[in-house]
Each structure stands twice: as structure tokens, then as C-alpha cells.
């Protein structure tokens, strides 16, 4: 079976492509998905790929990415993939259940969807849409609105699969779940992965998502993840981004939180040519708390954008955003972060900070923290810094016999630590610590093989 068809190079071609592949797309997520696809594509035709004239994309130039040539796969051929041969992850002190998504397709040698003894469901999004249509309809496209953004519209129009996780009321995943998103191909590839994570009331999960490329081609992944956290649900999501430096990753995560829920995300961006992370959090229940943390360590010509919106829609919710970055060589970064406190959201406490260290005078950072407050009884703060390593601290360390190189590493590591320290699973935190330390030393390979604990 030939898994690759058609070359896409422009937006016009995406239109042709959509019409041509319509049947196969509709088979992937039928019924409800069909309507959504239809509407989403209409939105995409209107919106297109966001240009830098769109405020939120002012420092995130997407057009060059979409002007490259990519292949697109509409079917997945599991025979060509042997995970044990390619990928052997060992995260010490951390028992994880490992799941794979390859080129946006959920992959498991035996099944499409697993139902665990406590009712937890995990596996393929497309399969979940077929087997649990009510559940799917209740949440799909509810938090990521295709009418609001060309990238979401594009994803919703073309998405065929991705990861699905459902936790019924009062269930707890005893093990951390590790989702490995892999890109592997013998030519340039564009994908539209779609994930849906549903935590019903009082449920709890720890999820680690690792992003990898397994070959040195240009990849463009445009993924959308929707998260629903019911009352008093608790989710921790750690994302490790470690792709080749020719790859482009556009990853949007939409989180809906009910009362007293707690969701935290830590996104650690180590390698990848162009990374755009979006976090859209809707705090819709009293007592909900959200932490959105990010750390990016970039060099050469890497580009990283982080964009956030924390929407305080109801009273008594709290949120905290901390983004930190070290930019070396010619790296370029941007942070566009917003706290929105709606009129009735009294007693909101919301904080945001973005701190950056530029190691060269060629590295560049654009940061734009924003507050929009319509309530009068709130505690909010935001702040951003761009600077160099503290020369007083450097001298202090060197005056104790520590070399300049080591002193710089210690200070960079210390700078990043706030984000790492916020990872609640100890084994994972230790692993991330080690990876970050290796990355700062320049010892972490940027190659195709797994750098997240592989031999």
C-alpha cells in the first residue's frame, strides 16, 4: 500500500486535496465528525493560515512553513513500523504505561481502543468516535473552536486520528501515562493530529507526552488537543519537545476546567526547528486552578513561540503562568500571554511571568504579556524580563574556583529550575532535570534517534 499521496505546497492545493480525499476523511471520523469537518473547512477557506498581520502571530511567521512541499498520508501502514526496534524508552523510577502515536495515527499492535478494569478508556480517537459517539460529541470541537483560528480549522478539516483518553468519575490512573508522538517518513510530511482527553469529576491522571522525529525530513505537524477536566478532576501534563531542527510543530492545547479542578502543564522545548505552542485555558468553575509552565532552550536558528490565554470566566479561580527561556546563537523566541478576567470573575488571582536569557547579541526575544480585567476585586500581576546571565553571580561562583563554563551552566540551570521543580512526578522530574542539564551542556543529540531515555 502506498501511504503517501499528492504533494501539497500551497493553500489552494489544500482545497483540492480536501475535495479529493473527502471520502477517506469522512470514513475516519464519520457522523458527527462529518458535519464538523464540513464546517471547519469552510472556516479554513475564510481564515487561511494566520499571517503575521494577525496580532497573536506578529512574531510567529507561519507562512514560510506552509510554503514548503510536504506529502500527506491518509492511511497508516503499521507493518513498516516496529516500535521495539526503534524506540526503547526507560524513564528511571517511573513506571509508565507507554502509548504510541505515529504520524498522527494511534498505534498498538493488538487493539485500537483499550478499556481498563476501572472503566478508563484509551486509544485511537477515530475508534472512540465510532464506539462512544455520545461521549465524543459531547466534547469534540467544544473547546477548540474552528471558527476562531485557521490552524484549528485546518486541523478539524483534515484530522483523522490521534490519542483519546477517558477517565470515568472517581477513577485514578495509578501509573503515569506516557504518550510518544513520533514522526517517521522517507520524505517531508504534514500531519493533523487530534487528541481528546476527558477527565470526569474527581478523576486523576498524570500524562507525559514526548514529541520525536525519527528521521531527518521536514515535518510539519499541526495538532490540536482538547482537554475537559470535570469537577475536582486533577490532570498533570508534561510535554517534552525534542524533534529534529528541520521540523515544525504547531501544537494547540485547549483546556476546559470545571469547579475545583486542577490542571497543570509543563512544556519543555529542547529541540525542534520551529515550535508554536498554544495554551487556551477556560476556567469555568469556582475554585478551579491552573498552572501553565514552559521552558525553552534554543540555539542555532530555532524558533519558539508560546502563546497563552487564561480565561477567568467565573469567580474564585486561580492561575499561574511561568515561562522561561534561554536563547543562544541566532535563536528567536516569542511569548504572547494573556490573562482575561471577565466581569463576574471576582476574587480571581492570576499571575504571569516570562523571563528570558539571551546568550548572544544575535538571539532575539519578543515578549508581550497582557492583562485584560473587567472585574474589580482581583489579584493579578504580569511581568517579563529579557537579560543576560548575572555578572555578579558569575563572579561569585568563579571566585570559589568554579570555571566560567561551569559557572554559566550552574546559573542557566538555576534559571530553568523553577519550571522543572513544578513537575509533580518525582521520577519524571529527575529525568527532565537530566535532559535539561544535558541540553545546556550541548550533549543532547538533535538527531533522529530517541533522546528521551533511549540507550
Amino acid at each position, binding site marked *: 500500500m502506498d501511504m503517501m499521496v499528492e504533494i501539497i505546497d500551497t493553500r489552494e492545493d489544500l482545497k483540492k486535496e480536501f475535495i479529493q480525499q473527502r471520502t477517506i476523511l469522512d470514513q475516519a471520523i464519520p457522523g458527527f465528525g462529518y458535519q464538523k469537518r464540513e464546517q471547519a473547512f469552510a472556516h479554513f477557506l475564510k481564515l487561511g493560515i494566520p499571517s503575521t498581520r494577525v496580532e497573536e502571530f506578529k512574531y510567529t511567521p507561519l507562512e514560510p512553513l506552509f510554503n514548503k512541499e510536504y506529502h500527506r498520508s491518509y492511511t497508516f501502514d503499521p507493518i513498516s513500523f516496529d516500535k521495539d526496534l526503534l524506540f526503547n524508552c526507560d524513564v528511571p523510577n517511573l513506571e509508565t504505561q507507554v502509548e504510541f502515536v505515529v504520524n498522527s495515527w494511534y498505534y498498538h499492535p493488538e487493539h485500537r481502543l483499550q478499556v481498563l478494569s476501572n472503566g478508563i478508556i484509551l486509544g485511537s480517537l477515530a475508534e472512540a468516535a465510532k464506539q462512544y459517539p455520545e461521549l465524543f460529541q459531547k466534547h469534540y470541537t467544544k473547546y477548540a473552536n474552528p471558527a476562531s483560528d485557521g490552524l484549528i480549522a485546518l486541523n478539524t478539516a483534515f484530522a483523522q486520528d490521534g490519542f483519546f483518553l477517558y477517565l470515568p468519575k472517581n477513577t485514578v490512573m495509578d501509573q503515569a501515562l506516557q504518550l510518544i508522538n513520533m514522526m517517521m517518513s522517507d520524505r517531508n510530511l504534514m500531519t493533523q493530529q487530534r487528541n481528546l482527553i476527558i477527565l470526569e469529576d474527581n478523576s486523576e491522571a498524570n500524562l507525559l507526552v514526548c514529541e520525536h522525529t525519527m528521521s531527518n525530513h521536514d515535518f510539519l505537524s499541526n495538532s490540536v488537543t482538547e482537554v475537559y477536566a470535570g469537577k475536582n478532576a486533577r490532570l498533570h501534563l508534561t510535554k517534552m519537545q525534542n524533534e529534529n531542527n528541520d521540523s515544525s510543530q504547531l501544537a494547540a492545547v485547549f483546556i476546559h476546567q470545571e469547579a475545583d479542578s486542577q490542571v497543570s502543564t509543563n512544556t519543555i522545548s529542547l529541540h525542534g526547528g520551529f515550535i508554536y505552542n498554544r495554551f487556551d485555558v477556560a476556567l469555568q468553575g469556582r475554585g478551579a486552578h491552573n498552572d501553565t509552565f514552559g521552558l525553552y532552550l534554543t540555539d542555532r536558528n530555532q524558533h519558539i513561540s508560546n502563546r497563552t490565554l487564561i480565561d477567568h470566566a467565573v469567580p474564585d479561580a486561580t492561575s499561574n503562568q511561568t515561562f522561561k527561556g534561554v536563547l543562544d546563537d541566532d535563536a528567536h523566541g516569542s511569548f504572547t500571554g494573556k490573562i482575561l478576567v471577565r466581569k463576574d470573575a471576582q476574587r480571581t488571582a492570576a499571575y504571569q511571568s516570562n523571563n528570558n536569557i539571551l546568550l548572544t547579541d544575535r538571539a532575539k526575544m519578543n515578549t508581550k504579556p497582557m492583562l485584560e480585567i473587567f472585574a474589580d476585586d482581583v489579584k493579578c500581576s504580569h511581568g517579563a524580563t529579557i537579560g543576560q546571565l548575572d555578572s555578579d553571580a558569575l563572579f561569585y561562583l*568563579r*571566585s570559589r*574556583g568554579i*570555571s566560567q563554563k*561551569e559557572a554559566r551552566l*550552574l*546559573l542557566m*540551570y538555576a534559571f530553568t529550575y523553577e519550571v522543572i521543580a513544578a513537575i509533580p512526578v518525582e521520577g519524571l522530574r529527575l529525568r527532565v532535570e537530566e535532559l535539561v542539564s544535558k541540553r545546556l551542556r550541548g550533549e543532547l543529540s538533535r538527531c533522529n534517534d530517541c533522546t528521551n531515555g533511549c540507550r
Partner: protein
Amino acid sequence: MLSIKDLHASIQGKEILRGLSLEVKAGEVHAIMGPNGSGKSTLASVLTGRDLFEVTHGEITFEGQDIGEWAPEDRARAGIFLGFQYPIEIPGVSMTNFMRTALNETRKAQNLEPLSSKEFLQRMREKKELVEIDSKLTNRSVNEGFSGGEKKRNEIFQMAMLEPKLAILDETDSGLDIDALRIVANGVNRLKTPENATIVITHYQRLLDYIIPDFVHVLYEGRIVMSAGKELALELEEKGYDWIKKQVDNPLITL
């Protein structure tokens, strides 16, 4: 041990040290006193290699080697220690990691094996007792949230860990109450051996009640203008610096 000859140093074109000379031998304690702005802290920075300052003339030799061009870490590894007037807070770097890195980088430079965890922890324990520093402090990030007195005590703790040949204590007494001052001074006295030397830089005589100097030097306008025994400190305490200033500024007037 240390020999400074006709040292001139400037910052941003402004000359601060203007021909300073000083000899320090093993086993000696030297106090350097002087009014504000006389160049005391500049001397400490220049001796330890801070690159904010430019040495324009003169030489610094330490144990027979010209260290004028050496990097701060190389001076530290050779055995020069600076107790900072304002110790730096470094959130995210633990005291333990800081000290282990400092010790092991120094040992590496001396072709010694790194200390084992057991040896290192034992050394931490011993030195903590010696300088009476609370374990809670050494479990935290470097100086983060420490009080003024705790920071100074931590400087002495680091000095105990690193066992320098020459310790330069820059205004170690500033900001200390009398109890903290005594603890810090006790630490310094306990670390004193016939093989090492100490330079105490201070504005006030107070510290010298506890750390008894062999020599007292007065620094004024970038030069040492007077040197004598410990009794000079008491005289300065009583009479202030004005009489010295007058004498230096108008050398023809006899007092």
C-alpha cells in the same frame, strides 16, 4: 605569600588604586582600614580578578607567581579566597551543589580525585560545626533569603570548606550584630594556621577586637599611607581619619 608592588587600577577610566604596595607573609593577619571611597573594596576585587577593573600598572605575585592576568577561578584554585561584602543570592543553585562543584573543580586543577559523596558530606558536617552555621542554611539555595548575618556566616563556612591560603575578608563586619560578629570572628580565628594568611578589610575597629591583626594599614586615595601594629586601629577609632587625611594632603604640616 602575597606581594603587591605599585599597583594602579581603574574602573571606566577612573583611577582608584594609585600605587598600592603590600607584603603579606604566611601566618600573618593584616587589617586594611580607611575612609569610604579610599579603594578598600577595589583592592579586594582586583586581587581576586574581577574584570570590572583594569590593572594599568604594577604587579601582584602570589607564592612567587605573577597572577595579574589570571582568571578569578585560577586565583581561587591557587588558594585565594574573598569573603564578599555583599554575598550574592543565587536561587536554584543549592549550597551542596555549589560547594561540591567548587571543591571538585579545585581538586581537578590540582590533579586530585574528586571527593566521594561520603567524604564530601563529612567535610560539610565538620565545617558546619566549626563555623556554627545552621544545617538549614546549607540545605537551601546559595544565600537565598538569608539574613545579613547568615550570609556573612555562610562566607566563613565556604572559607572553611575551601581552606584557602589567603583569605581576604571584605567588610565582613558590616551589618552584623555583636553576637553574629563574635561567631564570624571565632570562625576566622579557628581557621587560622601558621601556613595561611588573612587580610581583613574594615571600616571600623570593632571587628579587630575579635580578630587581632599583626599589622594595620590605612588606605587613602588608593595608596597605603600609614602602617603600624594593632594599636593603630584603636587610635583611628578614637581620632577618626581626618588627621591622616590632613597629613597626606598637606605633608608639610606637622601635627
